[in-house]
């Protein structure tokens, strides 16, 4: 019976250093048990400050109406929907790492999946704010749900892509949360069993649901994780597909495009990985987790970035080509004049997008640059900026010039409260992330222990000696059999 899976010695170890199981627990759990550092407090209070500004901006919008934003009759979707699509796209990497890479048996995911899934959940929470507050009368928000009501009953329109979005985003949030939390249970139990203080005993006791580590429970846990991964894989593809339907099912030039679903999904994964990178590069440094989130992990994610970035680049170019090839003058105008013309009001956004998403990630073909942490950090910030430009270009440049020049908006720029709302979601995101990094194990402890036997550095060294011994043994047996 071979319990050990053979792994090529060419593969880098997933866990550096000769770790024992206890050492793994110690490394990952001890930051939870110590007082937060100065850096944590600075980051956390900055996030809270942003959040407060955001709450005030939203309060003004709710209190005084959507006129607080600079939206016009032509530009009905501005920063808010741009930010919605941006955040929800960022959310896609977590599920991709945890679900799709689980199905593809990519063991390197174990180092990064926990933080990436947390990021997904927080990003979706941020994304959800935008369409909700864009409703204006947010207290009527529950009208979107089909429930027997006293207004007829009047039902929502199930043919509407916007309603599909309601179902897609809320399902996505729920499933991601369940997937993340059921995976967290064993690790929270680890924290509980190490707890010294009364508060920690109580908090982690409640949070771990009484996990014991029973073999039967592990069996069910693995079955659950596998099926949830199987469900989450088409789900993650469906969510951004449906978000793209918000645009693609309309008849606005620039939106009415069949390429949108795959193009949006690739872009979402692209921006999501960039955000995971930027968070993990900081997290591994601050919490000293370089042995678990190795350069190899960063390189693997950079490979995904260069792949999806190239897909996005192809999508941009084919979209441009087809707008001309379709022979539709409105379509071609939207691309030629509103986007690709650098002297048009939003030409800067189109070329900014092209540079950040298509040109600069190509540098990641170089192995040396892929493995450079500082360069990667700089690059992923650029990618996130570029992906924001993409959504802005798609939304604003398609609608700011209506069919009749008399209804053109000369230039749409956001009001301070629109910007404040966006900054506020950053505040929400980082507040939650800082709390997560302080109170939860940022790396899946049990999963790391699971791969330690096959991919840990000490094990790989051991495996090599076994192999060498075995081949030597084969040789002597061969000689004995008279083959030489």
């Amino acid at each position, binding site marked *: *019976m071979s*319990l050990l899976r053979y792994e090529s010695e060419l593969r880098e170890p997933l866990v550096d250093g000769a770790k024992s*199981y*206890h050492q793994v*627990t110690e490394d990952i759990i001890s930051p939870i048990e110590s007082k937060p550092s100065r850096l944590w407090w600075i980051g956390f209070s900055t996030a809270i400050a942003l959040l407060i500004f955001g709450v005030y901006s939203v309060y003004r919008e709710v209190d005084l109406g959507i006129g607080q934003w600079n939206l016009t009759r032509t530009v009905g979707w501005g920063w808010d929907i741009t930010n919605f699509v941006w955040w929800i796209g960022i959310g896609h990497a977590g599920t991709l790492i945890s679900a799709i890479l689980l199905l593809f048996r990519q063991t390197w995911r174990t180092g990064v999946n926990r933080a990436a899934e947390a990021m997904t959940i927080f990003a979706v929470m941020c994304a959800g704010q935008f369409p909700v507050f864009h409703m204006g009368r947010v207290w009527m928000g529950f009208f979107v749900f*089909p429930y027997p009501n006293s207004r*007829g*009953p*009047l*039902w929502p*329109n*199930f*043919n509407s892509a916007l*309603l*599909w979005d309601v*179902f*897609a985003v*809320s*399902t996505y949030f*729920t*499933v991601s949360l*369940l*997937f993340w939390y*059921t995976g967290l*249970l*064993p690790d929270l139990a*680890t924290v*509980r*069993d*190490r707890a010294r203080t009364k508060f920690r005993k109580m908090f982690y006791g*409640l949070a771990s*649901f*009484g*996990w*014991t*580590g*029973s*073999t*039967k429970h*592990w*069996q*069910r*846990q*693995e*079955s*659950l994780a*596998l*099926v*949830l991964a199987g*469900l*989450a894989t*088409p*789900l993650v593809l*469906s969510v951004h597909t*449906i978000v793209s*339907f918000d645009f693609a099912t309309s008849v606005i030039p620039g939106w009415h495009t069949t390429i949108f679903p795959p193009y949006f999904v690739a872009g979402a994964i692209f921006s999501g990985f960039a955000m995971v990178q930027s968070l993990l590069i900081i997290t591994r440094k601050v919490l000293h987790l370089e042995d678990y989130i190795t350069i190899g992990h960063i390189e693997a994610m950079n490979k995904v970035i260069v792949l999806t970035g190239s897909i996005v680049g192809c999508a941009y170019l084919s979209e441009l080509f087809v707008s001309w090839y379709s022979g539709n003058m409105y379509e071609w105008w939207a691309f030629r004049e509103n986007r690709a013309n650098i002297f048009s009001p939003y030409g800067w956004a189109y070329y900014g997008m092209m540079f950040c998403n298509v040109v600069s990630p190509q540098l990641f073909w170089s192995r040396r640059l892929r493995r450079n942490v500082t360069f990667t950090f700089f690059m992923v910030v650029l990618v996130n900026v570029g992906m924001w430009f993409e959504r802005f270009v798609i939304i604003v440049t398609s609608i700011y010039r209506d069919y009749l020049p008399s209804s053109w908006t000369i230039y749409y720029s956001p009001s301070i409260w629109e910007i404040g709302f966006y900054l506020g979601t950053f505040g929400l995101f980082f507040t939650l992330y800082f709390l997560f990094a302080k109170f939860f194990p940022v790396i899946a402890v*049990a*999963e790391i*222990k*699971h791969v330690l036997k096959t991919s840990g550095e000490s094990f790989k060294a051991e495996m090599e000696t076994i192999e060498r011994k075995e081949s030597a043994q084969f040789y002597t047996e061969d000689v004995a059999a008279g083959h030489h």
Partner: protein
Amino acid sequence: MIKRFVVGTFEEEKVLFPAVKNVRRAGYKIHDVYTPYPVHHLDKALGLRETSLHTMGFIYGLTGTLIALGGMGWIFAVDWPLNIGGKPHFPLPAYIPITFELTVLLSAVGMTLTYCWLNQMMPGVKKHHFSPRATDDAFVMVIELMEKSNEDEIKAFLRDNGAIDINTQVAEEGWWFGRYDQEQKLYRTEEPVIES
């Protein structure tokens, strides 16, 4: 119901597996083995049957599909037929996104709740933890003491099979929504096949 258990700790997988085999051959009843991470094939070695959680997931998913299609069909074709741009009252392609989402939603939520129910897990549940190392770095084997069991013999047997920290613990099996110690039939009745 108060039961007595002999608890032995193992530090290595390669010691644990032969020990499980020997203990079962000797006819002792293994209550459970607690591990810090999923040890593959341990369930087979213990003779546990496959979980049917995924089957439940399928049933929940199917429920979601039917609720979505039935609900939208009833609402748009029966309860309040609305003419939206002359489109049909049951446009199947337009219903696919919501049908898919509800299938996934019900399957995931249902499975997770079933998982918690079967594992008897929820916030505030008190369980007996045989060793704090079970969630850290060791594999904890728990053997249930029957009326006729010889405690010292079992302890010696465990020691011979590489266990450390061997001790006896008394534990009351927890309750779960008023269901006192309903023994889960996890073990197969036929002779177990032990991989060698």
